[in-house]
């Protein structure tokens, strides 16, 4: 019991993913093949990229509910500009600048106006979607025009047999890991997440760091949006209104990054993403209906959280104020 008791949530979830893999390997013919594993990771790589963005914000003890809306609207606007005749590079710079601007506004509201992150970003997500639909473009789905075709590589290209979205996922993971472990701002971010008051006393520029974390998440969101759009040669802005952002939070929390901040790293996001990927892939191969898939997904997630709570019970020392 002591040995099990020392397992972290990350290890439990990883164990669950391995168990599921074993079960699918035994019961589902063709699950454990290189091709299927590549498809598995590919199908969750966008979720993973967004998970890294969300992870960084959550480690800084925030949350970014506008992430998916920013991703959809900024990329859709870029595509709209391209179809209006603007060169691709310029349109992408505009889109990226737009998303960073939203990140800054989020950060200012949270750091200086001191609106709780959950409300500021929730409102921002809705506002951005409405702004985009009313001022930037008319249709729900923005298609690629031929001038944007070079961007398609992000969705369809391969490097050494690995699809580009997986490469992007790996790239974002490495960059985020290096940022969190080896840069000054990375350590500051963790300090702010762990204890903002103590960080301030020690001289950490708390408010600029908060703005920085939302800028980072918005830029990664833009990148994830480019990969999404390139994968299906169009950007469906309706995703801003879907429950996708909760899937992203789920990946983060499931992997073991506590919503109370200051804990966890990129590895947690990877583990959470893999569990979701294994689940979805195996169930699709088994031809389980999408609605039933949702039920099974929910039950397994609950199970993971219950096991974690039983093995690592909360007490006055581990619980923090503001813990959701």
């Amino acid at each position: 019991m002591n040995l099990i008791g020392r397992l972290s949530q990350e290890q439990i979830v990883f164990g669950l993913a391995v168990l599921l893999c074993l079960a699918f390997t035994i019961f589902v013919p063709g699950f454990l093949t290189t091709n299927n594993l590549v498809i598995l990771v590919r199908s969750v790589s966008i979720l993973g990229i967004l998970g890294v963005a969300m992870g960084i914000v959550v480690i800084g003890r925030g949350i970014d509910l506008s992430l998916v809306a920013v991703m959809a609207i900024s990329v859709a606007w870029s595509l709209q500009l391209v179809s209006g005749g603007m060169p691709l590079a310029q349109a992408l710079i505009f889109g990226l600048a737009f998303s960073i601007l939203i990140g800054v506004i989020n950060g200012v509201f949270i750091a200086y106006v001191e609106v709780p992150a959950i409300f500021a970003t929730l409102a921002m997500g809705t506002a951005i979607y409405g702004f985009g639909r009313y001022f930037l473009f008319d249709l729900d789905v923005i298609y690629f025009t031929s001038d944007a075709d070079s961007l398609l590589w992000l969705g369809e290209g391969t490097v050494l047999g690995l699809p580009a979205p997986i490469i992007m996922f790996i790239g974002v993971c490495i960059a985020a890991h290096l940022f969190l472990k080896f840069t000054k701002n990375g350590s500051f971010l963790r300090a702010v997440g762990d204890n903002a008051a103590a960080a301030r006393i020690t001289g950490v520029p708390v408010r600029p760091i908060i703005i920085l974390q939302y800028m980072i998440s918005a830029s990664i969101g833009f990148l994830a949006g480019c990969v999404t759009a390139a994968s299906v040669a169009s950007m469906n802005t309706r995703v801003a209104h879907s429950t996708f952002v909760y899937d992203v939070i789920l990946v983060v929390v499931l992997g073991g990054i506590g919503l109370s901040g200051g804990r966890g790293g990129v590895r947690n996001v990877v583990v959470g993403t893999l569990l979701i990927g294994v689940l979805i892939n195996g169930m699709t191969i088994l031809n389980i209906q999408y609605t039933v898939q949702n039920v099974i997904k929910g039950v397994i997630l609950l199970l993971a959280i219950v096991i974690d709570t039983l093995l690592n019970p909360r007490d006055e020392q581990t619980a923090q104020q503001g813990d959701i």
Partner: protein
Amino acid sequence: MRFLKRAALTALVAFGGTMAAADGIDDPARASYYDAFKGKKVAYVPVAMGFDLTEGWAMGLREALEPLGVEFDIRDPNWSTSAGAQAITSLISEKPDVLVVHNPDVQSYARLLKKAEAAGIYVVQVNMRSSYSTDAFIGADYVGMGEQIGARLVEKCSPANGGSGKIAITQGVLTAAASAYQMKGISNVLAKHPEIQLVSNQAADWDSTKARNIAATVIQQHPDLCAIAGFWDVMDVGTSAAIKESGQDVYLLTQGGGNKTACDGLKKGTYSEVVVYHVPGQARDMANVIKQLLQAQPEPGAIKSALFTPLQFLTKDNITEDSCWSLPGQQ
């Protein structure tokens, strides 16, 4: 004297008569036609605005009705069934003359539509019908469409014709009329063809990213997959991307309102075949039914009629310049 008078009168009448013929004769039914539309209100509640089908219908209805003095009002619930139900509820009390409804599924609005008819509003349903039939339905006969698509899949994929016999289906939202009725039609055909194996039947919720992931996994499991039937061209952009990435030769049979993107998709090889229910045609049908209801003024709910839209099976080889239509500003 009397004779002279009569002669003068005859001459006058004859003269007047020729005058009238030279200036044309007024159509006695004309004024009543225009009077029937003066100050009338038509409200339109689609699943959401912002995509080819609903924008196309709105454009067609507006062009047909507004010049007649009909007020055309759009309530956009933006994919939320509860917002749609609220819009219909408030419209029932505002009492427009005609309500045009695009149902997100077969159940949600059924009671409300009944209530609207009871309140004296004509209810016209478009493309996805509710389980409750109202004054008019304009749209594809989805069961029949499913049967035709099923037959097409058998023709393409039957081992007798050199196919592998394996097919997959990507539905939209399971409870939408377009999915549920169509699946019934396809099942009718497949039941008679045991040589066709349905290896995957999934719902992608009208979402291209979901459709892509489903298709990628299915093709990986069944590299000899012969065809995928998708239920909407906008969603099946994702299916197509998965097929392209796999490098396999899979026949993609999809469907939609015949917007320019569908024809472009056929030319570029995104889709192999698109079943088209022509949206401007549907808009015209709707406008005509509305005009007829407003002129004849039957009791709302007294007549239950349906106009099934004729279907076209478009491939790269049979599209012409005017097979598809475009929205204003669409390139």
